[in-house]
């Protein structure tokens, strides 16, 4: 699925625009070592964590985007880092549960 389609699907707001257009798989977790172990190229990662290391984990794992549920946002310096690393950051009003459900329904496979 393309990130542009994901944005519509999740009613998401784009906080930072990255450089990958396609999502290959999805995952949701807030413990960074579990995410690190699962990271795949093009992954869409749903998390409530908003600090700088989220961008480091996403970038080292070649992920496509970070999705923040329940309208959560990131501070501007963190978003600057996301742009620098080419990671898209989305904020959706939906819960993590609903986001994963919608993505799964659309055929995005687990990581």
């Amino acid at each position, binding site marked *: 699925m393309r990130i542009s389609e994901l944005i519509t699907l999740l009613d998401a707001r784009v906080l930072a625009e990255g450089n990958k257009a396609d999502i290959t798989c999805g995952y949701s977790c807030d*413990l*960074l*070592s579990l995410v*690190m*172990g699962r990271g795949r*190229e093009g992954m869409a990662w749903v998390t409530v964590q908003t600090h700088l*290391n989220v961008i*480091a984990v996403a970038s*080292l794992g*070649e992920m496509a985007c970070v999705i923040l549920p329940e309208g959560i946002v990131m501070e501007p310096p963190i978003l600057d880092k996301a742009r620098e690393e080419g990671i898209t950051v989305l904020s959706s009003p939906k819960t993590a549960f609903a986001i994963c459900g919608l993505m799964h329904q659309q055929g995005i496979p687990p990581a």
Partner: protein
Amino acid sequence: MMHTDYPVEAGDFTRAGEASADIKRRLRQLGVSTELLRRVAVASYELELNIVIHSVGGQLSLEVDSQCVRLSSSDRGPGIVDVAQAMREGYSTANDEARSMGFGAGMGLPNMRRNADVFTIDSVPGRGTDIQMLFELA
């Protein structure tokens, strides 16, 4: 062929991950495959963050020759009393600050062992911890 050292400060979460990012950038420039790049990135990040979170400071080293990538760390303490226990999935002594950021799953050392072709850890309580990992270049 190549040897680079990276000092890593204890408790510096704003710079945590920078050494790993540089290691990945250098290996990509050398033409290392995407899959190997991912494995080294996972291992170096876990290594770097353990120094930030659990040690009083130390360093990471990257060495590359025609056969393999060697990633190593050494820190100045406090060392690990029971290494077998520390290697177990889920074991963590991370403090509340680290846990609130999503560290402390107790998966860092297991992630390193899983991703490296050779993994060795030596720790002396009161002295420090040395870790070495080898990744074979296909």
